């Protein structure tokens, strides 16, 4: 059972702040960590390896500092790591990210399963897994919270739905995206971490040329979407205290709500409607 695990290094905070002037991410003072879902993806892979044998290769695209998350992955039990690092990869949108990862997976070549996290806590799109599967023409199951069995070239998994779950059998090779519920992760083994830092560490770094892509097809240049402006939504609040007896206060409140196109729904919860929304 050969498994490729996709791992992203993300800022150690789910509340990514933006520079109000440039719209760039403010990363100063925030450490970098392995994306939390990806830790579960790797744990799932290590457990499959423990049960069925095989090799685990982790793959990450990111700047040179992302070496730390692939080293940590070796600590947790990955056999090998590939870091895709090249200034040409910078600024990739999800298309450029997934096609670059796809190219690298083609170069890795041998795999029965690709496991990713469902979502990265910074980019937050949850698109990479599905897009990589499309790129490689593989079946995919997303939101996996239980990997039940791997037998005869198929995998049986449970996938979380809003109001229940689906049990899916899927031919291998396939791509899974997992959620945190799938397992409890282990801490890296100290000896493996030390190995991951040594000269002989099984870590390879690939640039654009190594995976045979043109720099115009990756990173910002290869992205199909272009960000015009990035901004943080204004979270400010205006408070107005209503005065008078209860009747007056309630009447004024309702007027104000109508003025602002806010309505009281059947369940009694206030919901914000769009400007041309119906009034009750």
């Amino acid at each position: 059972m050969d498994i490729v695990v996709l791992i992203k290094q993300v800022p150690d905070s789910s509340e990514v702040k933006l520079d109000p002037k440039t719209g760039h991410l403010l990363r100063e003072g925030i450490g970098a960590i392995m994306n939390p879902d990806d830790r579960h993806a790797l744990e799932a892979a290590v457990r499959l390896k423990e049960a069925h044998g095989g090799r685990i290769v982790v793959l990450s695209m990111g700047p040179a500092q992302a070496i730390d998350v692939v080293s940590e992955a070796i600590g947790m039990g990955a056999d090998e790591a590939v870091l895709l690092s090249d200034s040409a990869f910078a600024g990739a949108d999800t298309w450029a990210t997934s096609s670059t990862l796809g190219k690298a997976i083609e170069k890795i070549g041998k795999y029965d399963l690709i496991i990713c996290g469902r979502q990265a806590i910074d980019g937050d799109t949850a698109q990479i897994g599905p897009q990589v599967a499309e790129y490689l023409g593989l079946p995919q199951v997303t939101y996996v919270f239980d990997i039940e069995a791997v037998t005869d070239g198929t995998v049986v998994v449970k996938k979380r739905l809003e109001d229940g779950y689906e049990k899916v059998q899927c031919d291998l090779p396939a791509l899974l995206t997992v959620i945190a519920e799938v397992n409890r992760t282990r801490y890296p083994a100290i000896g493996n971490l030390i190995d991951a830092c040594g000269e002989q560490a099984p870590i390879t770094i690939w640039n654009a040329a190594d995976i045979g892509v043109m720099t115009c097809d990756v990173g910002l240049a290869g992205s199909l979407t272009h960000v015009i402006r990035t901004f943080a939504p204004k979270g400010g609040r205006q408070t107005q205290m209503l005065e008078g007896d209860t009747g007056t206060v309630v009447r004024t409140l309702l007027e104000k709500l109508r003025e602002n196109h806010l309505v009281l729904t059947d369940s009694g919860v206030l919901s914000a409607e769009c400007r041309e929304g119906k009034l009750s």
Partner: protein
Amino acid sequence: MIRSNAENLIRKSMARFVDNELVPKAQEIDEKGEFPRELFEQLGRMGVFGIRYPKAKGGSGGNCVLFCTVCEELARGLMSLAAISAMQSLMGTNFLFRFGSEEIKEKYFHPAMRGEKVACFCLTEPEAGSDLGNASTLAVRTENGFLINGMKTWVTNGPVADFYTVLCQTNPEKKFKGLNFFLVPADTPGLSRGKPFDLLGTRNTKICEIAFKDCFVPLDHMLGGEGQGMTNLLSILAEIRTMTAALAIGLQRAALGDCIRYAHERAQFGKTIANYQLIQAKIANMAVDLEASRLLTYKAARMVDDNIPCLTEASMAKYFATEAACRAADQATRIFGAYGYSMEYSPQRYYRDNRFLLYGGGTHEILQTNIAKWAGL
């Protein structure tokens, strides 16, 4: 070639363990006062105990700097677990590793590395504390082994240990030169354990007396060459002291972190107490103490790794960092006001646990005496 820095990577990884598994539960674990078996086994699985032994020989392939890094992080979370872990990584297993037969290693050392067996180290006796030369537990040579008689006390992990490394006298006339270490398995007939001591701090480290009555051990259970006991002990003394200093750094960091958080939260006279210069002075002093402790400790740790004799540096580090930990805990009980006196908040634990650091590896009176001598007095 790009590679991660092992010290950073291990520190980060252990910090995540400490923040998730220890910090939120430390109070509860301490209150229970039991040997933390599950955490101990988890550290074993993580390869923490093997950090200072080479990988090819069953360790994790680290060194003293990495060992100190781990000790420091663990102590930031829970001093008793850090103490147990340090015992398992160094004093409790070192002589088995260096002098044990393959059979002994297979039976005791490797399981200890995996967290399946608990190790400990028995020097102190009722009449021999600082004055180890006075140790009188006797090992008498028989035809095919030794018979051990005597009593050890203050044995960390004593009540739960699977094997004991015991300092014995084989020839009382030779005093220091007659001291030797022996491996005594816990199931040796004649070995009995006393009741666990009621302790002020580090309440999860279980400590008791161990009595040896005609305990027979085979010849290969003598660890190290005849008469080499004190020399072998001296060979790890600098590392023991450096490790203790690292534990003290962990406690300082825990106290300082809690104090900063509390000073930002607690408001009196219309502002948070962080605004008051007398509180700022305490925080500043703690921060300076911490930085100085780090410099002394990691300097000594690097010297240990480079095989440079450093008993002086290690003694200074242990003395300074431990005293600084006592000051930090003391200041924490003040910054927290009355809550520092409550068993519900962390300062009381730091205040009790820091005392543990004062005795092992040499009391501060002994250290000061030696440092003065080395300074030229």
